[in-house]
């Protein structure tokens, strides 16, 4: 009773603070990518309110509610963090910060990092001062991370890193990269991998953007040519990299929530597009076959949203999702692909444009987004890898 009472008091104080502190423009629904704040020394803010909101939230440790206060968090128990979450949702507050540091590197450091690493790296992550990107994939190691070839050779108090990382999203606008490197001479596959933090401003780092079939992209190729990295930037033990990377594969809550319906809801519904490009007859979309496919997709959105909501509730109740997250990822991504494909199809000739004239900006966006979506079933683990995980770890099928 008294704990419930004190929770209630906490809720009221949070609500009161949020109502005072969250600028009205930060309470409107998210639009496009420009509404996301990713922080870092090379990042900026699209509006003064974005900066204000981040600073205020960070000042209370609310960007990383469950992290200890000494590392820039708010030190909240999970139940309290849930209350904060609910109040943020109630008020329609935008997330103050998007960050792989918050979602991925932070949890890794809390679990595997040394005290010194936590003190040094966590607070700037929580403040949004430093932006991190991920460096796992390599040209010869796509789905097979154990095939990593980038070498980190110990020379005195530095590792000398050489190799090439692929699909390093946003490397060009990040400050650091957490990556898998081969620390041991050990050539066997899983052993000999280390989890290393690399400052991207170091000499010998070369970041080149990758052009996708859809055009420009945030993906980069990152080349390391004898890059010197202080030995204290190794997280965990030299052979522990694989274990650390794997611990991240079971995506956590923020990531799972993003698989839900929010980004569909932000976009123009299919039937609005269909009405524009196909017209109506007797008050209904004139093409019954496409109408059937639109309804199928809308229903599948409902199913997906329910599954994600269910998973988030389970996580909130403290039940791990484990490999089941692969199923969520797989279906959410393929749903997005079908959505993009159907949109292009609905637009007909107007979905075929690459550049103007003859096409509106929105139409060109449709085409590019459709092409971009082909990567959805590859990035973050290919669909095939997720199917393998489901078969083995969820269903227990034999090797």
């Amino acid at each position, binding site marked *: 009773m008294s704990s419930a009472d004190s929770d209630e008091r906490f809720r009221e104080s949070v609500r009161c603070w949020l109502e005072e502190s969250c600028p009205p423009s930060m309470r409107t629904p998210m639009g496009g990518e420009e509404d996301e704040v990713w922080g870092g020394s090379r990042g900026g803010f699209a509006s003064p309110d974005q900066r204000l909101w981040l600073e205020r939230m960070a000042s209370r440790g609310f960007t990383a509610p469950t992290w200890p206060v000494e590392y820039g968090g708010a030190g909240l128990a999970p139940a309290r963090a849930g209350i904060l979450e609910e109040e943020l949702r109630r008020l329609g507050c935008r997330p103050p910060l998007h960050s792989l540091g918050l979602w991925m590197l932070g949890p890794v450091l809390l679990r595997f990092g040394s005290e010194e690493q936590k003190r040094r790296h966590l607070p700037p992550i929580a403040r949004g001062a430093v932006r991190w990107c991920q460096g796992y994939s390599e040209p010869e190691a796509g789905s097979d991370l154990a095939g990593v070839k980038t070498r980190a050779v110990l020379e005195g108090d530095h590792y000398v890193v050489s190799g090439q990382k692929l699909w390093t999203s946003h490397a060009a606008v990040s400050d650091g990269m957490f990556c898998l490197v081969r620390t041991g001479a050990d050539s066997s596959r899983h052993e000999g991998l280390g989890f290393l933090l690399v400052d991207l401003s170091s000499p010998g780092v070369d970041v080149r953007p990758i052009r996708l079939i859809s055009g420009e992209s945030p993906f980069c190729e990152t080349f390391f040519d004898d890059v010197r990295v202080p030995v204290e930037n190794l997280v965990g033990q030299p052979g522990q990299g694989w274990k650390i990377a794997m611990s991240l594969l079971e995506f956590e809550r923020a990531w799972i929530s993003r698989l839900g319906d929010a980004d569909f809801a932000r976009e123009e519904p299919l*039937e609005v597009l*269909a*009405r524009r490009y196909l017209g109506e007859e007797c008050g*209904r*979309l004139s093409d*019954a076959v496409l*109408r*059937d496919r*639109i*309804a*199928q997709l*809308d*229903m*599948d959105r*409902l*199913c*997906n949203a*329910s*599954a994600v*909501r*269910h998973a988030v*509730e*389970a996580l909130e*109740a403290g039940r791990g999702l484990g490999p*089941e997250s692969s*199923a969520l990822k*797989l*279906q959410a991504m393929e749903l997005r692909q079908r959505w993009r494909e159907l949109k292009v199809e609905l637009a007909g000739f107007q979905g075929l444009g690459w550049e103007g004239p003859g096409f509106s900006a929105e139409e060109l966006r449709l085409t590019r987004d459709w092409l971009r979506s082909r990567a959805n079933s590859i990035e973050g683990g290919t669909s*095939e890898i*997720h*199917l*393998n995980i*489901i*078969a*083995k770890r*969820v*269903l*227990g*099928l*034999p*090797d």
Partner: protein
Amino acid sequence: MGLLETTEQESLRETARRFVHERMPLSHVRQLRDSGAPDGLSRETWRELAGLGLAGIMIPVSHGGMGLGWTELGLVLEECGRTLAPTPMMSTVVLGSTALTLGGTASQLGDWLRPIASGEKLLALAHDEGTRHAPYGVGTRASLGSDGYRIQGEKALVLDGHLADALIVVARTSGSSGEREGLTLFLVPAQSHGLHVTRTLLVDSRNAARVRLDEVLARPEDILGTLDRGAEVLDPLLDRARVALSAEMLGGLVEAFESTLTQLKSRKQFGVAIGSFQALKHRVARLHCEVSLTRAIITEALHAIDEDRSNVPLLASAAKARASDTFLHVANEAIQLHGGMGVTDACDIGLFLKRARVAAMTFGDGHFHRDHFARLRGY
């Protein structure tokens, strides 16, 4: 209200599971089929189930029920679906008692709810006509004469129609087939003069009947709901029936999926368990995803009914579409992955495909519901 199961719900599920596995395992429906049992279900087992309170699960305590919600009913139906147990759950509990709750007078409630909860009386809904589900496609007419309404028409796929003590007949009192307005529901005793009920033997060996109404007399006090505005009862009734049937189907498809998994782990070809073949692994992994999504939308829809959310019709439609498509897909794959044995009558897996087909067509299949959903969404 969270989507996770509470401990009370888990223990209810356990009760249902135990009963169904002991008293109505798969051999039960097979035996009813092979013995040519004219009822197609065991009334004795039904009374036992009612004795556990499960027939009155949603009926108010004041009328002899447990007063629980749709989520709880869904759990029970799911367990019944696992063994394809033939019970009057759909006809009597889901359709009958819900129609009464939605539109019944105090006297109708008083007459029927208690004997339903105790397992003594059965009801059935006589609604669809022709060859497919069409909520307002009612041509059966009820014309007011001096002695009451005279009902004339034919009904198809009347679940448990040959067993019911009374039929809830959807008839047209005005307007013409296809219109929402002008429908009226009548509660007609089974013994009524001019009521001809024939049991049909369907592929799933479950229970349905054709009903011919030949100048059947119904009095104004037999109306369930409001004259000409029967759709106000019928619409929510059908939505609930769709979700409930989906929950039963969920049990069936999960069972078919799990026996297939077992088969994959135990059956050997080329010296290894066939479940070690990656092509089959990926197929069942995809099935698993479909099964999860099906469970998610059905759970959501059951909760939505309990919370009386405004999006019940959309969720009901999505749930029934998904349950129908997934059940058929799982059952087809299950047979294929069982190999030659899968297509023999001796193997149980075929029973699931048969049930999937009938259940899919009942209250609208995926195709029906995509159209229905689009209408609800205004496109």
